[in-house]
């Protein structure tokens, strides 16, 4: 599942960009050192293959649904983890740019969830130890399924953590996890089976390809350095996300926090964080309220009376005049923007 821009806060988005950007720089350097110029067209072609293979679906017996390969794990087996990460990153970038899958700010998060986790964590730490050197069908299938499931579960977990850290969605983490993990467990089994089937086909049809790929991957500096790198990335991004979660909207949050500290002492931490944004909003709206709608009348309404005491004004009173001003202003803005855009288009067609 792709993380989306709309669910992401700038802090979390930036943290994930930093983590994935670091892995990209590191992978690029590794590839440069490998200096295998055959890789250039091969990587491009395999990226296009992963894209194309997602157009072919096989049916899953008894369910009425269908599945296809994920790509990350297969690429890691064929190209080695670094090249696989670069290829997956290019596929995700094209998806973000052309098909708006996820979005550009969320690309950092998606590179991490769908690139780093399967290629640089699940492949070296799960697939390779389980598959070993021998390529018996049973062992390959087992390794592919376990690695795909692990990769996807980690990815689903990361999506939940990033969403929660961003604080745009109200979905509680527990419920979100309960929704995501079983679905991605099932997808992982299907993807693992598809990847294994493809690997076994390749083993029968062109065994030398797989042998070359595996010896190439073994030659590349891997193992401990890689595992340490992957763990460090996980840790760094985890810590960064934790910081991000304590300040969902950076400046905005600190402003809300500062303003609210003067008005209402925080009662319980959970409630207080949740209300911080609301309080900031309501604390700032009266300044924009309808200026003395009926001059001369006494503050008879509950809202007016409540406005006299800052604490009571915070919640749950709804300022109808400000709401009206907001809605009217919003509608007008849209009309203006549409008019400008239409004007520009008309001028262009005339010209």
């Amino acid at each position, binding site marked *: 599942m792709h993380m989306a821009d*709309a669910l992401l806060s700038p802090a979390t988005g930036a943290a994930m960009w930093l983590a994935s950007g670091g892995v*990209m720089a590191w992978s690029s350097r590794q590839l440069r050192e490998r200096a295998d110029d055959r890789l250039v*067209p091969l990587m491009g*072609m395999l990226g296009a293959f992963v894209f194309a*293979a997602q*157009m072919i679906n*096989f049916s899953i017996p008894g369910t009425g649904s269908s599945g296809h390969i994920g790509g990350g794990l297969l690429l890691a087996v064929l190209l080695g983890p670094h090249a696989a990460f670069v290829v997956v990153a290019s596929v995700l970038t094209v998806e973000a740019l052309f098909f708006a899958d996820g979005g550009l700010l969320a690309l950092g998060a998606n590179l991490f969830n769908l690139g780093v986790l399967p290629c640089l964590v699940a492949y070296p730490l799960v697939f390779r130890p389980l598959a070993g050197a021998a390529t018996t069908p049973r062992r390959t299938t087992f390794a592919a399924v376990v690695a795909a499931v692990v990769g996807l579960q980690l990815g689903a977990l990361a999506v939940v953590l990033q969403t929660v850290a961003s604080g745009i969605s109200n979905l509680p983490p527990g419920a979100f996890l309960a929704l995501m993990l079983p679905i991605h467990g099932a997808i992982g089994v299907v993807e693992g089976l598809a990847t294994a089937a493809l690997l076994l086909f*390749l083993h029968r049809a062109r065994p030398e390809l797989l042998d070359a790929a595996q010896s190439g991957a073994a030659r590349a500096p891997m193992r401990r350095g890689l595992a340490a790198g992957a763990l460090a990335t996980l840790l760094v991004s985890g810590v960064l996300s934790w910081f991000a979660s304590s300040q969902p909207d950076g400046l905005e949050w600190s402003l809300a926090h500062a303003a609210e500290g003067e008005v209402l002492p925080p009662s319980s931490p959970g409630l207080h964080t949740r209300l911080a944004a609301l309080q900031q909003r309501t604390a700032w709206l009266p300044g924009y309220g309808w200026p003395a709608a009926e001059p001369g009348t006494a503050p008879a309404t509950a809202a007016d009376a409540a406005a006299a005491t800052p604490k009571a004004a915070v919640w749950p009173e709804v300022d109808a005049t400000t709401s009206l001003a907001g809605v009217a202003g919003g509608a*007008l803005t849209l009309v203006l923007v549409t008019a400008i855009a239409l004007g520009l288009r008309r001028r262009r067609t005339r010209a």
Partner: protein
Amino acid sequence: MSRLEAALQDLRTLDTLATRDNALTRRDARAQLLVTLGFLVTVVSFDRYRVAALLPLVLFPAVLAAWGEVPGRTLWRALALAAPLALMVGLFNPLLDRTPMLGLGALQISGGWVSFSSIVLRVALTVSAAVILVAGCGMPGLCAAMVRLGVPSVFTVQLLFLHRYLFVLSGEALRLGSAYRLRAGARRLDLALYASLTGQLLLRALARAQRVHQAMLARGFDGELRTLDGLRWQPADTLFVTGWLAFFVLVRSVDLPLALGRLVTGVLVGLLAGLGT
């Protein structure tokens, strides 16, 4: 037509758009990339309960789409492809957050619906900005801009290759799929058949990569891909970047729609009061 087929067709449309000569494609790809990133950061930096304050930002994709002659249909199709996930997660907001937030007479709107609308608006803004970026500079321009801005060339070369062979292999996959359907009738594709079908596609892709490599070697390829990026920063690009960034800062710091709404409702009340006396 399948989702991916439609997406591929749109990809071709975007490529064609980027080759035209118009007010958007004349801007340096770096300028377009920087402004788009500034726009995205501005959009996501708003509090989740802000809807109206985000609306002036619609001006950015609207104006750029007009400059770049991007058809509304292309934007809609991209939105339809991208929206489901964010909407699925966002739909929980109205269920979970029922505290009233906006009131218009008897109508009370909960915080959940407000934040849901904010998510919908964010999807529309971010998705259209990404699509317009591609329609404005095209893949080669975008990759050239990325290299100039410090992205590793290993990655941009990979992007260019992927973009070039995407259509070739996707076309093959679609033909394989339809050939199977024509011969198999109602019989569905099981895993064993799937493996040999995609396996054939993979073997062809590998063979093609080998041929492409040979062809590249024949043309003097030495591991480094040299491209003419043709990027030239002009004064108009500086104006383009500073103008839009200033607009984003303005929208971010002043709630324009609310100020406008206040002005209009204030004038109306003044008029009504004037009529009353």
